[in-house]
């Protein structure tokens, strides 16, 4: 399956390579570089690139290309999903996944990769198992290791892999047993310029942090499970129980994990909690344009809107912008023509606005379309879908 893995940074250097079968020359990446050049933008590099003897499947995350080399037919999603799992594992191990961090921990990275694949077929991808095999580096452990000469590699080989609960390590002990569940909902909407919603959908996840002793078996039920009609689960959740009773029953992995993610489709009407008023106009006669946007809350059920960030890709003809925000900070990058305004909290009494003029390239014709505005925001303690938090969590464990 997966022959080799190359890690390539944004400047096109291969800074790590790992082979699971016979060594594949790194010159194979030249095909990738060609494709990268053609694509102009990093995110437009095709995920699957055929070369005469190999196929290159890549994912792009954290400004690093993870390029897998394969030789024979394999479901492309298999490889892509695995590469994402690799990135997630690195993030889990080192907190961040970046070139310097990977370079610093190259031995751990190598050991982890060695365990994740055998002959190109995934072997251990559960972070619980991996962490038992190879302990993640912490400052304390590094200090201890240098003094005592002990190592990152677990001397006890994990037993979890042998059990039917491969996601949970055994022998977990806590003095304080606790479990936290975090419901995060993302709303994704397209709104036309008159303010009406074209499509909106909600993507939600329930992340959990479970620190419980032994082999706990949890059940979780919802007030209104009917909302969750399209769900995907962590492998620990028992499908049948959910099918028949709409109850989540599972033996959780130890630590942080994503219990489930759900999708509330566009059919259900979604009330968007924010609105944007805009007044952007370019005039043909002068090379100046007017620009004004205001952000305001709408149907927030009394919750504050935080972390508002407005970004907008300006047309190519725009030379510069002189704007003044009523709150927050804004930047305009004259090269990429990207305007970004970090608003912060919205105060309903004094709505934040950004006003000013746009200077266009002299002689250039008026851009024929107003730019798209992207708006990001956060609201704490509010589930847009109306999903009530879990009704109760019953815990049975010895």
């Amino acid at each position, binding site marked *: 399956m997966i022959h080799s893995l190359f890690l390539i940074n944004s400047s096109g250097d*291969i800074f790590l390579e790992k082979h699971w079968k016979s060594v594949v020359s790194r010159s194979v990446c030249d095909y990738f570089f060609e494709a990268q050049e053609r694509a102009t933008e990093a995110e437009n590099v095709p995920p699957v690139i055929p070369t005469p003897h190999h196929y290159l499947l890549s994912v792009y995350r954290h400004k690093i290309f993870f390029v897998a080399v394969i030789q024979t037919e394999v479901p492309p999603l298999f490889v892509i999903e695995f590469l994402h799992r690799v990135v997630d594992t690195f993030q889990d191990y080192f907190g961040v996944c970046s070139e310097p961090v990977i370079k610093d921990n190259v031995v751990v990275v190598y050991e982890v990769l060695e365990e994740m694949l055998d002959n190109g077929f995934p072997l251990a991808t559960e972070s619980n198992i991996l962490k038992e095999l190879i302990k993640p580096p912490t400052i304390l452990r590094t200090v201890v290791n240098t003094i005592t000469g002990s190592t990152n590699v677990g001397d006890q080989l994990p037993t979890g892999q042998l059990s039917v609960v491969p996601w949970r390590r055994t022998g977990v002990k806590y003095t304080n047993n606790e479990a936290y569940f975090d419901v995060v909902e993302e709303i994704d909407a397209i709104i036309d310029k008159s303010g009406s919603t074209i499509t909106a959908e909600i993507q939600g996840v329930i992340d959990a942090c479970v620190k419980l002793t032994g082999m706990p078996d949890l059940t979780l039920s919802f007030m209104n499970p009917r909302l969750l009609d399209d769900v995907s689960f962590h492998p620990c959740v028992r499908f049948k129980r959910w099918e028949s009773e709409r109850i989540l029953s599972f033996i959780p992995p130890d630590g942080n994990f994503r219990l489930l993610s759900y999708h509330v489709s566009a059919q259900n009407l979604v009330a968007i909690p924010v609105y944007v008023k805009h007044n952007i106009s370019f005039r043909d006669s002068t090379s100046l344009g007017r620009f004004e946007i205001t952000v305001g809350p709408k149907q927030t059920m009394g919750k504050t809107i935080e972390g508002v960030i407005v970004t907008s890709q300006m047309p190519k003809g725009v030379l510069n912008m002189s704007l003044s925000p009523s709150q927050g900070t804004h930047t305009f990058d004259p090269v990429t023509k990207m305007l970004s305004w970090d608003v912060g909290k919205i105060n309903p009494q004094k709505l934040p606005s950004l006003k000013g003029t746009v200077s266009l390239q002299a002689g250039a014709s008026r851009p024929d379309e107003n730019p798209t505005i992207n708006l990001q925001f956060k609201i704490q303690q509010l589930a847009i879908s109306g999903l009530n938090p879990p009704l109760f969590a019953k815990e049975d464990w010895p």
Partner: protein
Amino acid sequence: MSSNSFAYNEQSGGGEATELGQEATSTISPSGAFGLFSSDLKKNEDLKQMLESNKDSAKLDAMKRIVGMIAKGKNASELFPAVVKNVASKNIEIKKLVYVYLVRYAEEQQDLALLSISTFQRALKDPNQLIRASALRVLSSIRVPIIVPIMMLAIKEAAADLSPYVRKNAAHAIQKLYSLDPEQKEMLIEVIEKLLKDKSILVAGSVVMAFEEVCPDRIDLIHKNYRKLCNLLVDVEEWGQVVIIHMLTRYARTQFVSPWREDDGLEDNEKSFYDSDDEQKEKTDKRKKPYTMDPDHRLLIRNTKPLLQSRNAAVVMAVAQLYWHISPKSEAGIISKSLVRLLRSNREVQYIVLQNIATMSIQRKGMFEPYLKSFYVRSTDPTMIKTLKLEILTNLANEANISTLLREFQTYVKSQDKQFAAATIQTIGRCATNISEVTDTCLSGLVCLLSNRDEIVVAESVVVIKKLLQMQPAQHGEIIKHMAKLLDSITVPVARASILWLIGENCERVPKIAPDVLRKMAKSFTSEDDLVKLQILNLGAKLYLTNSKQTKLLTQYILNLGKYDQNYDIRDRTRFIRQLIVPNEKSGALSKYAKKIFLAQKPAPLLESPFKDRDHFQLGTLSHTLNAKAAGYLELSNWPEVAPDPSVRNVEVIDLAKEWTPAGKAKNENPTKKFYSESEEEEDSSDSSSDSGSESGSESGEEDEEGDSSEDSSEDSSSEPESESGHQSDTENRRAAKRNSKTKGKGDSKDGKKENEKSKTSDSSNAESSSVEESSSDSESESESESESESRKVTKEKEKKAKQDRNRLATDASLLDLDDFNPVSTPVALPTPALSPSLIADLEGLNLSTSSSVISVSTPVFVPMKTHVLLHRMSGKGLAAHYSFPRQPCIFGDKMVSVQITLNNTTDKKIENIHIREKKLPIGMQMHVFNPIESLEPEGSITVSMGIDFCDSTQTASFQLCTKDDCFSVNIQPPVGELLLPVAMSEKDFKKEQEFHG
């Protein structure tokens, strides 16, 4: 290979040095070679010293640095001798890093690598399973051909290892050995065959992977393991699931007949639904051979469904393609929701999923129509995602949604991503051709775009308009005139060429403009693009033929220009046209037809989806993504006309008993049971496996005894029936019950659960009846993953144990529902399992040896008075019918269950000629009807008995109860408990059985 591996030594002098290094190692005088490493010399010398030191920490540091070098792609091969010495290090981390090094360089330094082999061979015998496994892993990863026999031996041994983890590694090693030495194929297939029989979820994925790599054509190896794989699927780790599903898809396409018929919508269960309707029934009868799905086919489809909710996109995609390729078309719809959910994933996942949806949406529009809005383009999408979404939107467009879509497209056209805007215009063109209602709207919209300020947009519009006009050329003179004007401003060659072609084609409709355009073009001919030049020539030729008076000279001028053009294509075309249109002596008969040749009616181009031809690739494969056959792609065969013998998948009981005993009982009997167990159980079970193996012979002897005795001793009364074999038929029943309960819907199962709980609390007085209830409710709320093979296993245990077992089976699918199925310790709801008649027949087949009879069928100690309504008096026009199970051996046949039917006449008239007609029974079921009753007096009642062979299932027996004037459709569904026969056996025998079956 090795030359390959040297190619990238980009470090200074690396390539050269390695070669020398290799030379040096072959003469075993490495020190000589090191002299050449002027730059690396010091560092490597230093590393060598560290490796040779006594301190582990120094060694570790050295190894870490070496691994760092490997990771960066630097050559570290000259350190091989120093590193390989440490292969037996006690320190685990050093050992691991040495392994990493070995696997990387052993291929290049084969002789030295051999030094390490003995260490691994020793480790292969280690008592710790993990050490055995890792030794096998490294040993098989060292690609040294000399050790092939050693590897072969190691794999064979590991494949028989007691630890499933070691067996898993053996499965991986098979692929490695195969790629090293394909000659070993035959031997490896033997190992694969053996491992395929393994029932551990750990092994399943890996061995199927090995199967796919080594012998994907040996589909015969799968037969016996098919049902097991289907049933294990939910619990296999996610990567294994993907591989298994892909393999089973191929398997299903060779073994089952196509479920795709015109009357696809009618499924088995739906058919029974229609049974009540007379006419419908006749129709079904008339159909020669109604399609019935092979239960194994159904099993696969059913068992993969929950995996649509996997978090792993690859698994979801694998299930989706399985449904697409092998399920009835009416059922494939459920995959669309899951696929749409994947669109919220990473860009790469989106890319692949959208490609697959694009292919699907061409063939079956309806599947994705409800999700139209999910394919709307977002400004943040990368261009490749945008174009794929556009593709899907085009495929989904129809009369109903086109207006919404066009509005959406209007926004896209204005996008700043010009490549995307151009793609949108193409899309509009395709919509216009596909949906005739909007052709005019689209055309006018595109004409508006001609005045757009962006040249790319205009050019693309021109090209699309050209295609559209070609399809309905008659009435669009105005547009052509407008486009002719554009020639002055537009510079994109394709667009100019398109306009010229269009004018040429329609030169008779715009007689004034065409010559003028030609004049302008003649002026600028030399500076035009080649593409445009060719079209100028064409235009000239066409005008020459239609309007030679005005354009003769112009055309000749252009032809002259073309004659001396730099491009040979143009020179060629010029010569060709001149010969054809300019009459001279030499020109033959062809020039007479010049006009016909140039101005022939040209067929309009078909605007087709680029995904049209991808459907011959299996979805979700690399080949599909690339639209080209990738190496190792396995073609999905067409459905066979006639299904191959389905009995090859049957797993015989005897086989089974022999097979599963040596491999450890707990795990094999019921793989999911391990869910509860810690890993030690693994060891335990394998310990005890040896003695249970020795017993298996005598065991099977007893089994047939039991069969014999239970057959004849029906009258033998005994206190408590104790046989777990009831439990088997039970499971079978359950399986069937599920099929039935499907029609009932989910609500049913919930009720069943409640009932279940109720019955537990009920007191012992009605223990019997409640247990019946319970078992039936069980069967409904039951999970779907019991295996057929399991149901065949003959096990006998005490009641309580039986109960527990049933619980275990219940948890089989939902893994661990202990809170619901706590083993009942009080003897409240003891079920009375018994051998059902057909099971006895099964057991008869097991005659192997003789020993004393130990089991006898006992009469029921309690017969409930409970009756079930067969026909209510309201719906039976006064005729009421009730049925009950008397729990007596049926006189009509030993496979039948006796049913008593009580008929009541509640009318004030005589009911005449009551009889049964139109039996509509599932395959295999039989029914012995009662003799017609001539008449039933008002207020009279009569009890008749009949026998039904339910085939040990809770399938419904439907038939018609008829009187002289009317017919009523009725059905009988037996509770599971009524299918069982109580038997008695001695405690000793029971224990023996218990031991045997764990």
